[in-house]
């Protein structure tokens, strides 16, 4: 029950309190409360726990993390090359 999963906001209903959204979890659409993540807009990714969005997923940061992996890959290849006796 501690599990929190990411999904994409595909519809927002501003008319009810607390504010609700339809969130797509890889094809499964569920109603989620987004009242306490006010910066969340349409098409954003959110982390959802027990029916409530708990934070927005930052796509720019996600890309940054992936860049770190790409750099790590490059440095490991460099290291591997340097270990080959010339």
């Amino acid at each position, binding site marked *: 029950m501690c599990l929190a999963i990411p999904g994409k906001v595909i519809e927002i209903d501003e008319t009810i309190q607390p504010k609700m959204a339809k969130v797509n979890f890889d094809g499964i659409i569920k109603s989620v409360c987004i009242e306490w993540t006010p910066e969340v807009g349409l098409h954003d990714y959110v982390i959802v726990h027990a029916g409530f969005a708990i934070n927005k997923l930052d796509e720019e940061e996600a890309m940054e993390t992936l860049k770190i*992996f790409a750099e790590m890959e490059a440095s490991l290849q460099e290291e591997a090359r340097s270990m080959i006796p010339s």
Partner: protein
Amino acid sequence: MGEHANLEKYKNAEYVAHLSKAIKAVSASLGTVKLMHVCGTHEHEIARHGIRQFLPPTIQIIPGPGCPVCICPVESIDQAITLAYQPNTTVLTFGDMVRVPASHESLEDARRNGGSVKMVYSALDAVNLARENPNSTFVFFSIGFETTVVGIAGMIKTGIPKNLYVLLANRYMPPVLKLLMDVHDESIQGFLLAGHAATITGLHAYDFMEDEFQLPCVATGFEPVDILLGIFECLKLIKNKEPRIVNAYPRAVNEHGNTVALQLIEDVFERKPGIWRGIDIVDDSAFRIKEEYSFLDAEKQLDCTPPYPPRSHPPGCDCHRIMLGELLPTNCKMFTKTCTPSNPYGPCMVSPEGTCHTWFKHGSGKISLTHTAAHTI
């Protein structure tokens, strides 16, 4: 980008292989290192993906008290059971809680014996049920860490029907790290912080680990690459003797957390010392409903005192030592023999987030011959 926020990248076998190599390289000069995680989902994902097979044998990842169902005090479950037997009263709670053994019986047993217990997915379901049945009394038995507390606080702040009460047994994770340092005689060299609890609190909630204990802590995500990156970052900090709090899950965690949610939690709850089942009383770790909302506090408004004393653990049960990371499930004589998911003896075997349940289902994660990335290293 697909509907899953690039998550496929975080399962990428090549990244896993590279991180595994990088972990071997950074740990070569370190000797044995003991890291602890404090999240049931971390153990579940570590075991399910066979993460331990990508680590050198000197790097131990110990599961800590990260299963909210397992650490829920037996006293609170006894109170919920007592309420379930009250006339015209229904206890609502998350599915995992229903089968957890308490002092005499579980909520499931109570339901079989005439008590009224219903499972809900969310606190919002509890509000809807109470609204649809205005002549019945409902009690939402609330458990969980920071992630769950947001929804409960929001529900209370928005206003709930008069026939709905809250029995609150939620716990706050950061202070238990101090207790774990003590229990393990400071032999833990770093913590992998639960990424989703940290998305609420932010990294600053853990600053005391740097100030008081000079111990590295890394906020860690839940995909295979996230977990290995968390381990790698933690080992790097240990190697460089930098006892800092680092964020290896930046797409979800920041320094200050979800400030709107934190304010909401502060408006509705305060924190007091609280029992963690079989472990101890931990200062500042129990959420309590503030006085101004006492009209919906089940402990204050309803008769929930059980007619028997609490008994945390049945004889021979090692769950409390497993939750503390002192023992592994395989050290318990009952594990897989007299304690199984279909017939659980202790709380760690009940919840899918309990270490014993996870190890029963997936093993410890040391051997996973079917793992997709296994052929790449």
